[in-house]
């Protein structure tokens, strides 16, 4: 093995400028792959950290020997949610909340830095007066993201705020309890679970093309070496020696690339913290996977690249002469498309029942998505080859003919370039048109709180008193709701909705909110828009997530296009040089290279985007095209980037065709 490493090192150093270019391309590809892989892993880690930071606020079930009472509610300021956790100690063993040095005393309020900041910035009658004077600042362990608005309020056990039941809207993660607890929850809440699931899905969308791309990078090294290795094989090197030499070379290059990828990721983290999900950016620390995961990624990348190199070498080892001659590649089998059809049919049969299966259904859905993803990845090259055949068959100009033939020649390489965009395009297209609909819950200046009807007049009276001096009208609406909506003859609850109209915009509404704080213990007066915040946010987050994955896919496509086109120039340098000598304009060669990427990108990437848009059309409410404009911007930048990356190898093309006497190596 030592001989293999030494020989590889010599080959790497002594391979000449072009060989070095090949190695540098591999290194760059591995660096980008590693950087993006760390992003995928880091994002999951960050969501997990958020889930941990969020878990303690959601009161669990009451226990037999409680030490504290915990309740959760959500207030709003400037339309943004403020998470309020009411805590009361039952004895001296009350657990210390995360991010705090001790359990809060009755009458104390601990605020997040962002809330403290806002309390100072806004007039006191809009926010600060809702709370007692702050006694402490919550540490980051208590916070989901740096800009989060959180208040922990200390109460006595008998305080109405710690005894009044919260509305049961726990599925939105906005309220909960009060519960008699002996420890804080550590399991992810329902809403955090949704984000974890989506993050996992996004990672699958990013990681699979990354691995394919990383593997391709490894094979690029092999491609650079194959003729020389075939020569080694011909002079009697054993298959084992050939494999060892190339694998060592690929692993050495990949190890350097992985380290470069780590640096790349480190440099990107400050930018990544600004991606807004669930109402805020990220703690930089959360985006760093722990040391074991980090070490795992850095070790796994060179190993995977090595494994991929071994697979790429199989042909050299099996047939030393095979690589020296360019033969017609075996046609792609239609079974590739059949596999995709099988997954689609299976989903059609089983998909409908998944919703009723709860969490198990979600897992099956994930499995289906992964299978569909793999099937599309499996079918992709077949489709690219088909596009290539059609392009070649219908080409009238030489550039298009060359592009079509090249797609047929190596459809996998073209697919690798466009795979990510094609796979993400549908989701991004679908989500781009989805807009938050108009608020379903009434005008934005109308605050409401629901109480038993018999208490509503008294509550309205108190509200009017509190609102003295503020331009606001108080009214009561009587509503009847069935306890069980499906049981037409079941019991009916009569509710009085105390409605406060505070015209004058956000400031007026916030003044009214502040005046009405604690009006009904355990309840917060809210507008219709407040109730939509979580849903709107989830939709916005889905779109942000899809666009992030699309951006990553475009980055993979851009790097892949750059590397593929550069390696194609190196692979075909003799033919290019000869064509150039024979008077072929450089522009024709360039156009052929461009079309080789652009045709599958437009057909598959553009096709999947448009399909997504088409499917999203029925759900587009009010045709707010802001999402579409964002998507269009990404697509234009992405396509431009891919063409730009391809154009980067134009000087390389010029340099290989400028040599008036091309010789093999």
């Amino acid at each position: 093995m030592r001989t293999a490493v030494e020989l590889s090192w010599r080959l790497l150093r002594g391979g000449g400028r072009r060989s070095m270019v090949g190695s540098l391309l591999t290194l760059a590809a591995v660096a980008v792959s590693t950087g993006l892989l760390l992003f995928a892993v880091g994002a999951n880690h960050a969501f997990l950290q958020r889930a941990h930071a969020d878990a303690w606020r959601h009161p669990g079930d009451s226990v037999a020997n409680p030490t504290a009472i915990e309740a959760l509610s959500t207030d709003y300021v400037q339309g943004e949610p403020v998470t309020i956790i009411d805590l009361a100690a039952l004895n001296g063993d009350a657990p210390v909340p995360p991010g705090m040095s001790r359990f809060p005393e009755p009458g104390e309020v601990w605020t997040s830095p962002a809330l403290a900041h806002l309390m100072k910035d806004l007039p006191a009658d809009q926010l600060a007066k809702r709370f007692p004077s702050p006694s402490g600042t919550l540490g980051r362990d208590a916070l989901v993201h740096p800009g989060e608005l959180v208040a922990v309020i200390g109460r006595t056990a008998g305080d109405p705020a710690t005894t009044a039941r919260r509305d049961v809207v726990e599925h939105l993660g906005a309220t909960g309890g009060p519960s008699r607890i002996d420890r804080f929850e550590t399991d992810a809440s329902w809403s955090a679970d949704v984000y974890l699931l989506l993050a996992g899905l996004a990672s699958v969308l990013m990681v699979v093309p990354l691995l394919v791309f990383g593997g391709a990078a490894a094979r690029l090294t092999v491609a650079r070496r194959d003729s020389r290795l075939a020569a080694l094989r011909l002079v009697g090197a054993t298959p084992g020696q050939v494999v060892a030499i190339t694998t060592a070379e690929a692993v050495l290059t990949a190890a350097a690339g992985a380290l470069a990828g780590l640096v790349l990721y480190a440099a990107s983290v400050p930018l990544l913290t600004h991606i807004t999900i669930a109402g805020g950016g990220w703690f930089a620390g959360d985006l760093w996977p722990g040391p074991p995961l980090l070490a795992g990624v850095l070790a796994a990348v060179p190993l995977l690249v090595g494994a991929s190199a071994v697979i790429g070498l199989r042909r050299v080892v099996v047939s030393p002469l095979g690589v020296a001659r360019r033969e017609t590649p075996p046609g792609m089998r239609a079974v590739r498309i059949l596999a995709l059809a099988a997954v689609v049919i299976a989903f059609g049969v089983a998909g409908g029942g998944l919703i009723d299966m709860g969490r198990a259904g979600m897992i099956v859905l994930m499995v289906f998505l992964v299978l569909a993803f793999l099937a599309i990845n499996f079918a992709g090259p077949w489709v690219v080859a088909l596009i290539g055949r059609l392009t070649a068959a219908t080409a009238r100009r030489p550039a298009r003919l060359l592009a079509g033939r090249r797609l047929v020649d190596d459809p996998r390489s073209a697919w690798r370039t466009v795979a990510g965009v094609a796979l993400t395009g549908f989701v991004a297209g679908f989500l781009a048109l989805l807009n938050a609909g108009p608020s379903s819950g009434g005008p934005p200046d109308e605050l409401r709180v629901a109480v038993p009807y018999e208490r509503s007049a008294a509550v309205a009276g108190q509200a009017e008193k509190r609102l003295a001096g503020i331009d606001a009208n108080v009214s009561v609406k009587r509503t009847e709701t069935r306890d069980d909506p499906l049981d037409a003859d079941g019991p009916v609850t009569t509710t009085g909705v105390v409605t406060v109209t505070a015209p004058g915009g956000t400031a007026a509404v916030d003044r009214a909110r502040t005046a009405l704080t604690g009006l009904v213990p355990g309840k917060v007066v809210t507008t219709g828009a407040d109730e939509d915040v979580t849903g709107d946010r989830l939709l916005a987050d889905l779109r942000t997530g899809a666009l992030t994955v699309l951006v990553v896919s475009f980055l993979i496509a851009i790097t892949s296009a750059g590397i593929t086109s550069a390696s194609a120039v190196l692979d075909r340098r003799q033919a290019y040089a000869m064509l150039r000598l024979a008077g072929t304009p450089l522009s024709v060669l360039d156009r052929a290279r461009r079309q080789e990427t652009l045709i599958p990108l437009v057909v598959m990437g553009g096709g999947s985007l448009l399909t997504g848009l088409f499917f999203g059309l029925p759900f587009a409410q009010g045709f707010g095209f802001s999402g579409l404009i964002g998507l269009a911007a990404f697509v234009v930048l992405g396509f431009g980037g891919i063409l730009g990356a391809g154009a980067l190898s134009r000087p390389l093309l010029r340099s290989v065709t400028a040599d008036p006497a091309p010789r093999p190596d």
Partner: protein
Amino acid sequence: MTEPVLLGRGLVKRFGTAVALDGVDLAAGRAEAVAIMGPSGSGKSTLLHCLAGIMKPDAGEVHLLGQRIDTLGERRRSALRRGRFGFVFQFGQLLPELPAVENVALPLMLSGTSRREAVQAAGSWFGPLGLDGLEHRRPGELSGGQAQRVAIARALVPRPAVVFADEPTGALDQSTGHDTMRLLVEATKHNGASLVVVTHDPSVAAWCDRVTEVRDGRVLQRAA
């Protein structure tokens, strides 16, 4: 010799301080085959590149059918190479992705001929060059001799005035090289084109009407 189709006069080419061509004259008449012979580094390939408009000589003139071409810009020289010259190299000149017939049709398509006509014209060269049935094979599926014959077809398909061949049999065994040279000379002459062959192999030069020997950038002698 009839009126020369290609004429190089007093050609000088330097690379830094090294003199590759030092006042070389060379002419090729219609349907005439001229060999340029010489050892490695003698300047024979540089001479071919200057005559074919690939390089500009530092001094001297190159004329094609009476028109001076060495003073033309790169774009016009490229167009000239595409339409009026054909090239056959030692190897590596065929695009591996294209089937043989499309490799041959490519120069015509580059000059604006429709694909259908270009492929039709290309196909007509396969029979005379003994390539029948190989139209849809890719270069990797052809033998060395077959690939060179495809390259000859490609050089001749635009009906060039001059075909330049740089060591056209260098990668072939003697027997295949012999057949390839015969086909190259016959097909070129049949087409009415001049042939300029650069070689260090006397048996290749023997196929030509005249041999110009180059040594240290100068013409040594002319043999019939």
